[in-house]
């Protein structure tokens, strides 16, 4: 976690004292140190990996190596297959993510509106949430066919139930005092929703979104394992069957990058909202 603060936010006066300057300097040095350590660990890891393969400690055919991965990436980038697979996975993940968030908020609002509906359906959501969603993927393929629709649904299935449960809990817990205030100001239930529940839950909606983006990626990859002709999940399965482990590991590396970037984007959104 890198904590960034605006440097030199003065206390009361416009002046920044010497001790405060020293403190800020120490903090910024600490951040630099953390960043440098992270980068060195990655470099050291790749360097050791390459070295181990070159010296013969591990078998390059099975373990591949950073240089081989890089070369494969270059050649697949040139013939366009890299972009096709990555693009397909990204597209499916984004669609299932947006649908999950949309449907999740909508369902949670409906449950919030009707206490009995929430009470009746709660055990179903709990069961569906704990169910290993990979068990659903083969069924989805039979039902919906081996196409992108199935993969998007698989992605959603992993995230949606948890989203609904968490959002609903958040809605229920937000301020009964504030709710009472709205009623005394002459408001109705929909005012409580739009003036209190939704605005006060924006931080929790965003943190649920941060979890969802990762879960959707998991679901999409599971879906692609099962029935896809493109996408990184397909690339992983196909490469393992034809024993092209360099491609397989490359796909994993790309997945790491995707996960990092998507999470980073949501982090930025969160910071902007929280100001």
């Amino acid at each position: 976690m890198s904590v960034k603060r605006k440097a030199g936010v003065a206390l009361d006066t416009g002046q920044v004292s010497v001790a405060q300057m020293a403190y800020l300097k120490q903090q910024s040095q600490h951040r630099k140190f953390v960043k440098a350590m992270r980068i060195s660990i990655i470099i050291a890891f790749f360097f050791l990996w390459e070295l181990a393969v070159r010296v013969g400690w591990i078998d390059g055919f099975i373990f591949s190596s950073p240089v081989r991965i890089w070369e494969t990436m270059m050649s697949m980038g040139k013939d366009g297959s890299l972009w096709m697979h990555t693009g397909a996975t990204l597209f499916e993940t984004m669609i299932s993510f947006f649908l999950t968030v949309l449907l999740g908020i909508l369902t949670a609002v409906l449950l919030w509106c009707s206490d009995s509906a929430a009470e009746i359906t709660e055990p179903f959501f709990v069961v569906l949430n704990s169910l290993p969603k990979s068990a659903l993927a083969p069924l989805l393929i039979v039902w919906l066919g081996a196409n992108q629709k199935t993969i998007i649904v698989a992605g959603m299935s992993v995230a949606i139930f948890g989203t609904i449960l968490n959002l609903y809990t958040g809605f229920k817990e937000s301020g009964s005092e504030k709710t009472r205030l709205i009623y005394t100001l002459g408001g109705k239930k929909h005012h409580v929703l739009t003036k209190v529940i939704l605005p006060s839950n924006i931080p929790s909606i965003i943190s649920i979104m941060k979890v969802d983006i990762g879960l959707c990626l998991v679901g999409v990859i599971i879906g692609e394992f099962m029935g896809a002709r493109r996408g990184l999940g397909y690339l992983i399965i196909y490469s393992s069957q034809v024993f092209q482990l360099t491609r397989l590991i490359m796909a994993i590396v790309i997945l790491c990058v995707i996960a990092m970037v998507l999470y980073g984007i949501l982090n930025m959104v969160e910071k902007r909202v929280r100001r």
Partner: protein
Amino acid sequence: MPSFLECRDVEYTYHSLNGETKALKHISFTVDEGEFVAIVGPSGCGKTTILSLLCGQLAESAGEILFRGKPLRDHMDFHIGYMPQQDQLFEWRNIYGNVTLGLEIQKKLTEENQAYARKLMEEYGLWEFRHARPSQLSGGMRQRAALIRTLVLRPSLLLLDEPFSALDYQTRLTVADDIYQIIKKEHKTAILVTHDLSEAVSMADRVLILSKRPATVLKEVETTFEMEQRTPMKARNMAGFKEYFNEIWEVLQCQ
């Protein structure tokens, strides 16, 4: 002439799976227009239940609550200004947005009402903070904003539900002074619910003492101080303050 507000033999019973709890039993009192009445009593005695009944959030199990001689619910123009425990300002709105929340909900954001909101905010030193977030304001300023939020709706009656309980003691004294003067200046009728006896004596014209649950009115104590321009702070130093305090204290002890 009927009283401004009258509670006549009001009862209220809560129901739960473990049985029923009688919270209020034969509560009767009146409030005159422009009067400041405080309700004190042991904790959990049903003070907040009375407020909920007056707000119309709960319906009395027996008895009736009359406003100018007619049941509360029959008055379309009867409007309660509720000042909750803690200020309950919304952090995601700026001060102006908080003050006009009620107008927005009631779709009364007319030019006239906005001008009134502005006038109140200017008068009580909040206009320059209109774009600020609640967290940027001091405790006292936040209470003012919370009060103005109810005043812009031109309420018939103000209900203060331990409004200062979240403040530290020092702030509490000054804020009570401040809020009292605003209420008097705007000629509002107010009911204050509190467990702080000295707060009740210093602010109210009349103190209603409730018994333990199920609550009844044990006694009414009228507090008059010989001074011009009464303020809660000055009242605390007046002759008679201690006597009133002790009188209420004894009634609460003896039950």
